[in-house]
C-alpha cells in the first residue's frame, strides 16, 4: 500500500511500517524550546528525574518571545533557561538571534526527512523543507529532551493541489489564508497536510515557509511539501549535510484531496478574531488602522522585507499609523541592511525592533490600545493576542500591510505595484 510523506517519515523514524492511525514511538532529530515554553519544560524535566539531555548537539533553547526581557518576571525565566542550557552544554540562542522558526532552518539542523519537535505550535514551519516537524507542549518537550523520542499517532493527510500561478500582488500568505478560510480552523485537526501543484513549485523557498507555518491554523499537525532544487539550493546556504528527499507514493491514501486554481486569487485578509474569518482585501478596504506590523515567523524573512520596502521605499507611512518591523533573524536583519531594505523602511517611518517575535504575542514591542485596529503579517488574530483584548487584528501579506501603512486604512497592495 502506498504511503504519504508523513507515513514514510514516521515509518523510518520508528523502524516499522507505519500507516495512518498507528501509534508509534519515533526517534527525533532535533528538539527545541522557546522562552514561553522552556521554563515549564525545565520543571517537567526535573519532575521526570532527568539528568542530562539525550544529545547536546540536538537540543536548543531560543529566547525570542519576550526578547529583550520586558520585566523582572521574564528576566528570571530567561536566567533559568540560560543556566539550565549552560549546565547541560546545549545551545541557547539568546536575544537578538531571531525567531526560533527562522533560526532552526538557518542553523542547518533541519532538512528533508527529519523529524523535529518544538515546544511552539508553529514548529510545523519546516514542513516546507520536507521535514515532519510539529508543535508539542512543555512536558512532551521534556520527554523528548531526556529520551530523544516521542510518541505519535500517525495522522491521515489532506492533499491541497494548487494549480495556476499567483497573480502579481498576490502572495503565498494570501493563498494560505484563502485555504484556511476554505477548510476552517479545525478542518485538518489531528491530520497532516501536503501542498503540491505548479503554484507551490513556482514559489520561492521563503514563500513556501509561510504556507507550512500556518498549517496549524487549520488544526494540522504538519504542513508538508516535497523537496526540489529550490529547497536544496536554500539548504546549501546553511549546511553541507546531505538529505534524502521523501516523496509521497502515487497510490498513497489521502483522507481528502482538495483542488484550487490560484490564477484569479485576490489578496486576502483574516478578519478579527479568527484566522479562518477570511475575505478578499477589497471587501475590507477603507477600514482605518492605527498599527501595522511586518515580521514574525510567518512573514519576517528577507523576501518579505523586500516586498514591503518596494512599496514603502520613497514614500511615508501615514502619520496616524505606527509601523513596526521585526526581522525574523539576525541574518535576515544583516542581509536586509546590506541590500538597503532597512534604510528604505526606516526612512519611510518604520520603527525597527529586535529580531524575534516582536509584538506578535503581546508581551512587548507594541501592545495596541483599546479600540485600535492592527494589520499584521503574523499568523494569529485571536482576541487579546497582541496583549489587549479590546483591539482588533487583521492578518495579511507584507504587501497589503505595507500598502495599508501608507494610506492609514486597509488597502489592496496592487494600487502600489
Amino acid at each position, binding site marked *: 500500500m502506498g504511503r504519504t510523506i508523513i507515513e514514510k517519515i514516521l515509518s523510518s523514524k520508528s523502524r516499522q511500517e507505519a500507516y495512518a492511525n498507528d*501509534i508509534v*514511538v519515533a526517534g527525533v532529530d532535533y528538539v527545541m524550546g522557546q522562552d514561553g515554553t522552556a521554563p515549564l519544560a525545565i520543571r517537567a524535566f526535573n519532575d*521526570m528525574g532527568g539528568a542530562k539531555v539525550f544529545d547536546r548537539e540536538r537540543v536548543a533553547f531560543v529566547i525570542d518571545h519576550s526578547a529583550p526581557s520586558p520585566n523582572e518576571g521574564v528576566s528570571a525565566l530567561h536566567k533559568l533557561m540560560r543556566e539550565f542550557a549552560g549546565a547541560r552544554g546545549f545551545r541557547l540562542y539568546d536575544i537578538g538571534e531571531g525567531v526560533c522558526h527562522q533560526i532552526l532552518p538557518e542553523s542547518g539542523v533541519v532538512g528533508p526527512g527529519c523529524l523535529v519537535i518544538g515546544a511552539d505550535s508553529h514548529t510545523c514551519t519546516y514542513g516546507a523543507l520536507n521535514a515532519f516537524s510539529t508543535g508539542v*507542549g512543555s512536558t512532551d518537550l521534556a*520527554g523528548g529532551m531526556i529520551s530523544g523520542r516521542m510518541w505519535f499517532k500517525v495522522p491521515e493527510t489532506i492533499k491541497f493541489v494548487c494549480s495556476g500561478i499567483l497573480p502579481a500582488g498576490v502572495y503565498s500568505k494570501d493563498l494560505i489564508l484563502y485555504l484556511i478560510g476554505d477548510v476552517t480552523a479545525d478542518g485538518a*485537526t489531528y491530520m497532516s497536510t501536503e501542498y503540491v501543484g505548479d503554484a507551490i513549485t513556482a514559489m520561492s523557498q521563503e514563500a513556501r515557509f509561510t504556507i507550512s507555518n500556518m498549517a496549524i491554523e487549520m488544526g494540522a499537525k504538519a504542513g508538508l511539501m516535497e523537496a526540489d532544487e529550490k529547497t536544496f539550493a536554500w539548504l546549501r546556504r546553511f549546511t553541507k549535510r546531505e538529505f534524502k528527499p521523501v516523496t509521497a507514493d502515487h497510490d498513497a491514501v489521502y483522507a481528502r484531496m482538495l483542488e484550487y486554481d490560484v490564477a484569479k486569487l485576490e489578496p486576502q485578509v483574516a478578519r478579527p478574531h479568527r484566522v479562518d474569518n477570511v475575505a478578499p482585501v477589497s471587501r475590507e478596504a477603507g477600514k482605518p488602522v492605527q498599527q501595522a506590523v511586518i515580521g514574525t515567523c510567518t512573514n519576517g524573512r528577507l523576501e518579505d522585507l523586500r516586498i514591503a520596502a518596494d512599496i514603502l521605499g520613497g514614500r511615508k507611512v501615514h502619520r496616524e499609523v505606527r509601523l513596526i518591523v521585526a526581522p525574523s533573524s539576525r541574518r535576515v536583519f544583516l542581509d536586509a541592511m546590506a541590500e538597503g531594505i532597512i534604510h528604505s523602511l526606516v526612512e519611510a517611518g518604520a520603527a525597527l525592533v529586535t529580531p524575534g517575535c516582536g509584538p506578535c504575542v503581546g508581551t512587548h514591542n507594541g501592545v495596541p490600545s483599546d479600540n485600535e485596529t492592527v494589520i499584521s503579517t503574523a499568523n494569529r488574530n*485571536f482576541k*487579546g493576542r497582541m496583549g489587549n483584548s479590546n483591539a482588533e487584528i487583521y492578518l495579511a501579506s507584507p504587501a497589503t500591510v505595507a500598502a495599508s501603512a501608507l494610506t492609514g486604512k486597509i488597502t489592496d497592495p496592487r494600487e502600489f505595484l
Partner: protein
Amino acid sequence: MQYSGRAHKFGDDVNTEYIISGKYKFKTLDMKELAKHVMEDLAPGFYEKVTAGDFIAAGTNFGCGSSREQAPLAIKYAGVGAVLAKSFARIFYRNAINTGLPVVECDTDQLDPGDELFIDLNAGVITNRTKGTTIPIKPLPEVMIRILNDGGLAAHFKKYGGFNL
C-alpha cells in the same frame, strides 16, 4: 477514573488565548496565580464561579492555538475536574493528558449550564443527573489512558525512566 461536578458551558473554538492570555503566561511559573485569569475574556469571574471538581463543557476545537501548557495547567489549578468538548485541538489534547487533566470527547449539546454530571471514563459514559440522561464518550487511545493513569507524562517517565507504552 470517575468524576462528578457541574457543567460550565462554552462555545466552539475556545483558543489558548481565551484560556490563559499570553500577557500573563510569559511572566510566571506560578500556576495558582495564572489560574485566577483562566477564561477571563470569555467568562469574567470564571475562577470565582468554579467549585472544585466542576467541568468545562465546550463545542468543537477546544484549545486551538498555541502550544502553551499553561492552558491545561491553569484550568487544572482553577479546580476544574475535566474538560468535555465535541472535539479538541491536538496540542492541547496531548498537553492535557501529559499534565493529568482529563479530556473527554462527547456530544456536549446534550448538556446545559449547571447540569450535575457523573463521568465514568472506564465505562465510557457520562450520566447527566439533572436530566436523567446518559451520553457516550469517545474512548481515549490506549497510550493516553496509560499516561493519564500514571498521573501524567512526568510521573510516567519517573516511574519507567522513559516511554513505556
